[in-house]
């Protein structure tokens, strides 16, 4: 087996194992809830019919290992059952919300990384300059504010005081009636609602790629091969390209990790902006004790992190020939 293929194989197996682990952990977590699974939900007002549906869906009358088996089987088949609170299919209920979150987080984080990498490169390659020493402080400062606080400030300044954007929601009330599910996303109204949450995500996470890029550029600039490139007389641009390639490896590794953080942090931003995404849903579901939904949303978030880690590992393997050997 070639080293690259072997590396991919190892990573695939590890990823599948990790996913299985997450599924199991979730099972254990929700089965070890204080009190009976259904009792918790009954307490929050689910009616007997709903509880019966839950019992059937999760095979709660069977032994634990059978529950586990059915749980896995259901999850793998995408059969998630019904939310006892909303009385709708969990998948039907969450799929659009998952989409709403991704349409916010993916462009925002990508934009964050592009800008951050650019600033970090400038800062790192001018080490000791005023920009490097003080220019990143505001970025870190904004990143040090709790995400909800940044979001609130944005609302106050741009929505309330300056009245440039709507304060919350994804679309104006009533504006989506009669439209196909995808049509609202193409409206100006959506775009206006999109700006502030997007900015909040960027503000909150910009320091991550900026600092990491700065650090790795500084480090790569100090490597012997950088000096060797200079002495061989390669033009500055070519040299910068090589430096960027090396320096981008750590940024790339951190990308899925910060996506995970962004998904977590989005709970706050979505709450402030009433953005109908999974973070918002999660808080609602937890407060309503809608465990099937919580469990699934949680799995989606964790699986997303694991899978993006896997994708990055693959890219990493292609970029850096050394990594394949480590297996």
């Amino acid at each position: 087996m070639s080293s690259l293929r072997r590396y991919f194989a190892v990573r695939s197996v590890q990823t599948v194992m990790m996913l299985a682990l997450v599924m199991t952990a979730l099972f254990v977590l929700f089965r070890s809830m204080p009190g009976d699974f259904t009792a918790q939900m009954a307490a929050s007002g689910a009616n007997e019919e709903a509880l019966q549906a839950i019992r059937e869906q999760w095979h709660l009358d069977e032994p634990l290992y059978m529950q586990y088996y059915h749980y896995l089987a259901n999850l793998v088949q995408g059969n998630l059952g019904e939310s006892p609170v909303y009385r709708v299919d969990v998948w039907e209920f969450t799929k659009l919300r998952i989409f709403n979150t991704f349409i916010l987080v993916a462009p925002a984080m990508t934009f964050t990384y592009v800008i951050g990498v650019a600033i970090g490169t400038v800062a790192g390659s001018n080490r000791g300059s005023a920009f490097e020493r003080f220019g990143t402080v505001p970025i870190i400062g904004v990143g040090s504010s709790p995400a909800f606080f940044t979001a609130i400030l944005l609302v106050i300044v741009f929505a309330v005081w300056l009245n440039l954007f709507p304060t919350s929601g994804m679309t104006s009330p009533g504006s989506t009636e009669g439209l196909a599910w995808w049509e609202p996303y193409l409206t100006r109204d959506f775009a206006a609602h999109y700006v502030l949450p997007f900015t909040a995500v960027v503000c909150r996470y910009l320091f991550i790629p900026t600092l990491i890029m700065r650090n790795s550029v500084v480090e790569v600039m100090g490597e012997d091969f950088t000096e060797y490139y200079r002495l061989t007389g390669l033009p500055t641009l070519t040299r910068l390209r090589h430096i960027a390639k090396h320096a981008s490896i750590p940024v790339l590794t951190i990308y899925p990790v910060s996506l995970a953080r962004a998904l977590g942090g989005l709970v706050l931003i979505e709450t402030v902006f009433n953005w109908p995404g999974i973070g918002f849903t999660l808080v609602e579901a937890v407060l309503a004790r809608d465990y099937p939904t919580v469990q699934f949303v949680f799995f989606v978030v964790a699986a997303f992190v694991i899978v993006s880690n896997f994708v990055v590992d693959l890219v990493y393997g292609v970029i850096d020939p050394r990594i394949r050997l480590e297996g």
Partner: protein
Amino acid sequence: MSEPLLEVDDLTVQYETDDGMLTATSNASFSISEGEFFGLAGESGSGKSTLAKAIIGGLDDNGQVSSGTITYRGEEIQDLSDKELSQRIRWKEISWIPQGAMSSLDPLQRVSEQALEIGNVHTDLPDEEIRDKLKETFDIVGLQESRIDDYPHQFSGGMQQRAIIALALFLEPELVIADEPTTALDVIMQDQIFTYLDRLKDELDISLLLITHDISVIFESCDSVAIMHASQIAERGTTDAVHANPRHPYAFMFKEAFPDIREPKRELEVIEGHPPELMGEVDFCSFADRCPWAAPECREGAPPTESVEDGDPSHVTACVRKEEAYEMYRSDASPIDDGSGAQSIAQMGEVD
């Protein structure tokens, strides 16, 4: 050996530090002729690497040539900009073999890719020809031609060092500067690499500036040598002359500090202390504090560089007590207590 290819004249290089100007080389002069192998020897901290880096414009940002000139083929190059050096001097004329090949090769690039980039910058040759040239040099340094497309990590340490030597040679420069090219390697690998470097002298008519702490390889492979101590060149001349008639106390003590497997039980010379860090102008002999024969005048001014009267006009030393010190060293029995040591001194006497 015809006209000088490279002339370093009265060169002083300093680094700006928090504590002031640190002098790395002070008023150093030497020249390298076409086809000549020139060795620059000294301990760590002697300034030998700084000197070499100044030639190819590789000083760190806080380093600068404070005074003196570096002349390559009649043109002063010490003030050329980085861009001019890249366009006209680097790799076309002067190439560089760094100390740590393992860290100097870009781990993300195949060796051939790195060569193509260098070749495309400095020549108009088509890619195929550049690859052919690299293959040829791979052959010269004893690597399989097929391996030019390997990544650096696929090579062993010794092979990486050869690959980087091949990269220094494949555009056929006039002068190669090698900064401790074998320090990280085992003796066998070192010997193979010098075998190849020696072969170059015959095959490519190339000049070499070899920087090393190991004077034995200089004595074996170089035509001329300069011995540096703490920024100053203590002694310079042909290897034969410096080996036979060293006059600077640092030169002969340094030489005697090296073990020679022909005389395994010879007592080795010990030089007390370590090279000082020098701030500002060095207007004294930098070896004075470590020299057993130092006199007050050694600290009163930088010693002038003067000829050694041994029939070799290029053999010079910078010591105010050169003959006296050497006499005392020879008559002082302490470092020479068995037959072998005395024998080597006796040999020197003969040449004298």
